[in-house]
């Protein structure tokens, strides 16, 4: 389509563009086209170059001519100390060793043994394992699970232990609070005996005398006694009487302590 045809078409469409002159508004850097061919050729040569220096020489002889030495500095001995610094960080890292490496460093012997399972199972055990379970569960009812804690006797036993403990502790406390002070036994007896009347004391002594004379024994039937004593020898009876007298003597001596 010719340029005039385009303008005519724009006029027919009543477009305002028909009056705008078709002029390029863009600009290129000065001398762009003069140097373009040279630059393109340089680039082609750069692409075909065999090493970076040759490449840069085609792209920018200026950059190729200046020093590539970096102006930055590093602390003294940095590179000498870096490997150990890195290893130190790695050693403190949680992923420093695998389980195998850890065992190897801890015990080379165990590490050499390896962690292969030495146990064997019957042939086809795992293949048939599921089947066996299904078979058993089909034929047999599930076993009842009895909990030890739920048993009633267990609860009673636990309660009895607690009650027993409380009772024993109470009794112990009660008697501890009512013990007669041993160091002042005589004084305690004197003080308490002063509270007892003479009549009460006489009746106590009389009752004790009667007991010691065996009146209770005399009330028992004679035939019964003979029946009971028929297998007992005279020597045994004599020993018994001797022991009984000794017991009475001890009671008398205790009574002496109480009365004095």
């Amino acid at each position, binding site marked *: 389509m010719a340029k005039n045809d385009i303008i005519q078409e724009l006029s027919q469409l009543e477009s305002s563009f028909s009056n705008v002159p078709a002029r390029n508004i863009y600009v290129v850097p000065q001398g762009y086209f003069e140097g373009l061919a040279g630059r393109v050729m340089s680039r082609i040569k750069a692409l075909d170059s065999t*090493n*970076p220096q040759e490449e*840069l020489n085609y792209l*920018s002889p200026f950059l190729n001519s200046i020093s590539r030495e970096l102006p*930055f*500095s590093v602390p003294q001995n940095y590179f000498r100390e870096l490997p150990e610094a890195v*290893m130190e960080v*790695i050693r403190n890292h949680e992923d420093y060793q695998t389980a195998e490496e850890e065992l*190897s460093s801890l015990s080379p012997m165990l590490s050499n043994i390896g962690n292969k399972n030495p146990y064997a199972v019957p042939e086809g055990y795992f293949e048939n394992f599921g089947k066996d379970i299904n078979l058993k569960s089909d034929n047999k009812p599930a076993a009842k699970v009895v909990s030890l804690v739920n048993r009633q006797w267990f609860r009673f036993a636990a309660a009895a232990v607690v009650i027993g403990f409380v009772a024993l502790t109470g009794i112990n406390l009660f008697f501890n609070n009512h013990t007669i002070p041993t160091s002042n036994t005589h004084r305690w007896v004197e003080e308490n005996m002063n509270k007892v009347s003479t009549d009460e004391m006489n009746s106590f002594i009389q009752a004790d005398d009667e007991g010691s004379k065996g009146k209770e024994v005399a009330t028992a039937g004679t035939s019964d006694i003979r029946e009971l004593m028929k297998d007992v020898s005279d020597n045994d009876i004599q020993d018994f009487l001797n022991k009984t007298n000794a017991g009475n003597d001890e009671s008398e001596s205790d009574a002496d302590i109480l009365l004095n």
Partner: protein
Amino acid sequence: MQLTAVSDSELLVQFRNPVTKERAFTSIIKKYQEKLYWHVRRMVIDHEDANDVLQNVFIRVWNGLENFREDSQLYTWLYRIATNETLTFLEQQKKRTAVSLSDVESGLSNKIKADRYFDSNKLEWKLQLAIQQLPEKQRIVFQLRYYDEMPYEEMSRVLETSEGALKASYHHAVKKIEDYIKNH
């Protein structure tokens, strides 16, 4: 035993043996520390930042070296980790200060100017300022080619970009730097 005498594949074999693992890794650090340090340092400018990034790089290498596939070179793999770690660091720095990338770049220029040896009349310092004007990826391409003279084939594996795109990027970078130096 000289470091250069031990090949990467030999070091990898030693690394996989628990007894020689640590020694092999120390050798790997010694072999590549300077190259990687300068690659990082040129991007982050500050030594302390470069040191932090570099240590993180080697920790990543330690954790990943066991599974490293030898179908690519160790050197290429290390550069890729270092580049990614550096870009992550710059990204974090940008987020931390909640500023745009151009602010980060001007921040890097300020770091250069704050260097105690900075001399605005010296060409090498002007060059550093010019490099900071480049977009991040272009800056990496320029530095890998200009300073490390890395072949495009390797750079392509490091940056996972086509060789053609890298060549174009380098060409643009060279022109921008030349213009900057001429005009400043």
